[in-house]
């Protein structure tokens, strides 16, 4: 069949020109979104996800609070224009609900929720474009959004997909590849190298699984570097701006002409 897309050609290139272990470009935007406490937009190639975090804040429903820790509430919406075929997905779609609950349970042990009893942390995930590796993109963006919101985390969570084409493992799959070959998603915490999430939905031999699993854990570390860099850049910029402002005050102190009265 010539019309069929070759997943991995003889030259070792994939359908979008990448090598076997090559990840797609990761773009991270951590700029402020409206009134959200934290937000992050991440794109892995053509997959693009925006996550906004509100909180920790007073829970909307008192019955949903826990007396000893905060509750993570994840809501996910998929833009109808995110895929080639335009289809309105309801929020109650089981696939979306499942993904949202997977994100929530991934972050429950990572966020230090015990610091915020009776509070709620709202995580809103908006999928803007999808081209494979959707769950990893959501997880990575959520990590970044939580960090920008100043929510204490034990560590980053970095996720990546991997697949096996006949016997050669591939990383960071596109939709075309996901449809054709067995694939799995792995989320790792880079400091301890522990795995918080593993999912796989297609048939794969145990031995292959082992190989791919180890590879994906390694790829998680690479993604972590990118994410750390983006977070650090932002922090440096903000701290720099703050320092500049403060230094100005120190100079101004000499001849201040402000009426600052303590009216007691």
């Amino acid at each position: 069949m010539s019309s069929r897309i070759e997943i991995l050609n003889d030259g070792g290139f994939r359908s979008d020109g990448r090598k076997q272990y090559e990840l797609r470009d990761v773009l991270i935007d951590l700029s402020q979104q409206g009134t959200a406490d934290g937000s992050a937009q991440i794109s892995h190639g053509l997959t693009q996800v925006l996550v906004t975090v509100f909180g920790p804040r007073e829970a909307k429903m008192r019955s949903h609070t826990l007396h000893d820790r905060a509750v993570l509430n994840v809501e996910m919406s998929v833009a109808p224009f995110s895929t080639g075929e335009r289809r309105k997905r309801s929020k109650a779609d089981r696939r979306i609900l499942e993904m949202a609950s997977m994100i929530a349970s991934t972050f429950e042990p990572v966020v230090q929720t015990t610091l915020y009893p009776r509070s709620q942390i709202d995580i809103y995930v908006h999928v803007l474009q999808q081209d494979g590796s959707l769950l990893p993109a959501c997880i990575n963006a959520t990590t970044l959004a939580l960090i920008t919101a100043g929510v204490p985390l034990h560590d980053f969570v970095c996720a990546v997909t991997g697949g096996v084409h006949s016997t050669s493992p591939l990383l960071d799959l596109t939709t075309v590849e996901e449809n054709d070959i067995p694939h799995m998603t792995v989320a790792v915490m880079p400091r301890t190298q522990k795995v918080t999430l593993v999912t796989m939905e297609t048939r794969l031999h145990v031995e292959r699984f082992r190989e791919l699993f180890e590879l994906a854990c390694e790829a998680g570390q690479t993604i972590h570097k990118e994410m750390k860099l983006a977070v650090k850049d932002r922090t440096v910029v903000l701290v720099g701006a703050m320092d500049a402002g403060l230094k100005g005050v120190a100079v101004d102190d000499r001849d201040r002409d402000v009426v600052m009265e303590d009216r007691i």
Partner: protein
Amino acid sequence: MDLDEDDFDEGVQRITGPGESITSSHAFMRGHGTYVDSEEVIASVSGTVERVNKLITVRAVRSRYNPEVGDLVVGRITEVQPRRWKVDANSRQDAVLMLSSVNLPGGVQRRKLESDELQMRTFFEEGDLLVAEVQAFFSDGAMSLHTRSLRYGKLRNGQLVTVPPILIRRLKSHFVSLPCGVDLILGLNGYIWVSKHVKQHEQEGEEGFDAEAVYSNRNDDIDDATRAAISRVGNIIKLLASHFIPLTDAVLLEAYEWAIEQEGSVKDLLLDEVGENLVSSLGSGMRQ
């Protein structure tokens, strides 16, 4: 990555992120924004490392407001409950304002009656803004407020501007009067009340307390010049916050003077270009 004493030199700020190890837990104690795992102090938020003696803390560069007793906050009533109000103060939970922690009409010090409980909404209603002080904490970390001072209470004659709480530093006084006829209340929770200047004697009243005035829901007459000044100051604050510049009276005043010099209209301040100019002019003023 071990810390030496001289790592904390003046002006050298170490920036860290979640999961990054700071130092060993033998020599140091962990503070906010850190946790201990396998004898290492590890950061849990992204921000600057601070050290007081043996205590290591990481200050998040942006987060919700962390209350401390004695802080001045501006908040909004979200709910009226039996003998208490719930107040949104940009913290992780709504603050609580007990009926017993407010001044009531007819004498500052008196017992709270059942009739007071029935007419709580005449004092504060949902949506009302108020300025208060953090009094204490409940066991779950929620803060309790009080307004038992003549300077505290309901807010009117102005507008609310919100900024990230970290931009508001502790000052000698958080009540600031700018010479342009604008009063500012810099709540440590990042809520700033910008209002018309109130003369000192008017505010305090003759016998110190006028219930009508304190819990009034009506604005005084505000002339156009004051309105323009209020919105100009409001816009300046928004602009400084978007450039992440900490707010102090000096910076605000300088920015206000610059804005007046430019002779633009109030809304021009929100243009990117004007904003850049303002910030760079502030920078040059500082370097002098």
